[in-house]
């Protein structure tokens, strides 16, 4: 390939020089692609629960293991496959996608998207050992995805972000539940912004991060072009006691597709985060799928996000 001048410019997030961190070549069995992984931090290890699109075209999850959060080894066998029998089978016949991991009340929950012939639904599972996953329920109506649990109850209720499509518009909504099973009181929180980089669709990406100033949400914003969508990553800050209230929203994306591995793949021009890890000193690693073809890592600090991510005011 020719050596072109780099076009990567400056994004607030710093790309890890080892990107792409995980590609199809790193999976011990034949797959089409690997992307969108959510981290699970334990005292011993940093795991990533990763989405793999199998050769057949249906997605499932595998566990990637690391000690440093950068160099991963993928298990020989998938961790969670679409259900083929029982109640879930009908709603997972075309795969399971985009896991988001939240530790809540000392339990490791996974919110994922179940894809069936009748649409996308949000599903909830939990795991104790990161290898076996127990399904708890399908917790949305059809036409909903990008479900993410908050890491604690707020005002006595469980809270999640989700992304239904209403009138063709994809906004981030919030829903509440007394028991993780029955959900309601849904409200629009973050809609697309006309004319901005996120003017077509938005969806929650990283499980909300609690900071003294509010819940920090790292979300994805989509701009539709005649050549297809461009997926970028941006920031919003929400009230700690009432996360349906937006305190502020970053004007600019913090990461946009620029590198070849973000621009070339099954879905070109995609940066799509599914989780982040924060170290003791505030150092952050954000895990994002690139071009629906590989998993990449970007770094920053919580302080940098809070001070630079919302513009210099």
């Amino acid at each position, binding site marked *: *390939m*020719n*050596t*072109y001048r*780099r076009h990567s410019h400056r994004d607030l997030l710093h790309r890890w020089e080892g*990107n*792409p961190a995980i*590609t*199809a*070549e790193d999976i011990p*069995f*034949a*797959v*089409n*692609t690997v992307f969108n992984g959510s981290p699970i931090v334990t005292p011993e290890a940093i795991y990533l629960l990763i989405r*793999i699109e*199998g*050769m*057949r*075209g*249906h997605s*499932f999850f595998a566990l990637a293991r690391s000690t440093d959060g950068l160099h991963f080894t993928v298990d020989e066998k*998938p961790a969670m*496959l679409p259900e083929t029998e029982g109640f879930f089978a009908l709603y997972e*016949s*075309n795969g399971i996608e985009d896991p988001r991991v939240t530790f809540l009340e000392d339990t490791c929950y996974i919110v994922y998207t179940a894809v069936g*012939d009748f649409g996308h639904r949000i599903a909830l599972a939990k795991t104790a050992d990161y290898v076996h996953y127990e399904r708890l329920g399908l917790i949305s109506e059809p036409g909903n995805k990008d479900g993410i649990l908050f890491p604690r109850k707020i005002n006595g209720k469980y809270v999640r972000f989700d992304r239904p499509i209403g009138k063709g518009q994809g906004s981030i909504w919030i829903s509440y539940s007394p028991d993780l099973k029955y959900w309601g009181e849904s409200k629009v929180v973050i809609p697309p912004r006309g004319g901005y980089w996120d003017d077509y669709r938005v969806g929650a990406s990283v499980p909300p991060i609690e900071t003294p100033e509010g819940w920090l949400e790292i979300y994805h914003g989509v701009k*539709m072009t005649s*050549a*297809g*969508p461009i997926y970028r990553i941006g920031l919003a800050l929400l009230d700690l006691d009432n996360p349906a209230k937006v305190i502020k929203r970053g004007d600019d994306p913090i990461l946009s597709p620029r590198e*070849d*591995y973000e621009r*070339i*793949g*099954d*879905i*070109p*021009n995609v940066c799509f985060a599914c989780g982040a890890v924060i170290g003791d000193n505030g150092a952050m690693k954000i895990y994002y799928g690139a071009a629906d*073809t*590989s998993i990449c890592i970007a770094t920053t600090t919580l302080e940098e996000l809070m001070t630079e991510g919302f513009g210099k005011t």
Partner: protein
Amino acid sequence: MPQYKRATGRDIVHRWEGNPAITVSDLDFQCLDIRNAGATIYKGGIVLLVTVQHLSGCQYIHLAREEKNNRFVVETEPFLSPSLDPEYGVHESMGVLDPRIVNIKGTYYITYLTDGEHGYRLGLAKTKDFKTVERMGLISEPDMKAGTLFPKKVKGKYARLERPQEGSGIWISYSEDLIFWGDSEFLFPPRSGWDCSRIGIGPPPIEIDLGWLLIYYGAKDTSAGPLYRLGTAIIDKNDPTHIIGRCTVPVLAPREIYERIGNTPNSVFSTGALLKEDGTLVIFYGAADSCINIGTVSIQTIIESTMQEEAAF
């Protein structure tokens, strides 16, 4: 540009290390792009009929001869140009493309696609010497694509495979004389997964002991445009509507840069394949509607992969 870790994964068809085999820079004339090639053996050498989009945007069919070692020389003058004859002209005003060649008793029949004011149709032409070519007729109704003759009679009649727009699946039709066609029957449809949006036959059927081996393309529409991959099926010789086997995973998917970047990104598409005496199947495939490539696989491997039971993941 930095060299990133490969993300190419594993496919059943092996890419020739010299790919792309024919690009626009190999031509001694200017054009927009070079696309799909029909293939046959004439006087002991490989002859390709290549779809070339001229600078005007109109598509022509050019002849290419193998010089040596997979290197081809494309003739400057088109082998088949859009017709100026009033009967054909209105149906070929935007081009002739995607030729499939069969040799029936020393006559080479070329089924090609016509692009005109009233929709796509199938055209049939013949040659004995690859110098002169004679049009035999426009043999389909409009909105018909991906047509090829069988290299032998089926059930005592000439037969062809085709892809009507409605239903997006592969059909078979029969004829006593190659001019009048009927007895059309449905063979198989798109299905959930990598070939969910449209399918159509690639090269002419290849006769094997089990039946006819079909190499077909499967398209999956995404928000960023379609992904075109190649799959296989085996149909019964006496009853072609009996599907003996159909692959569960594609045998070739766009992964290399020359398959991902071009005028139609993320596509591999074949209209020509040759079975060598040693059992090697040589597949000539267009990539990204911008170049011609060569893939090889042993016929035994491709039969086994076609008959393989659905894998768990």
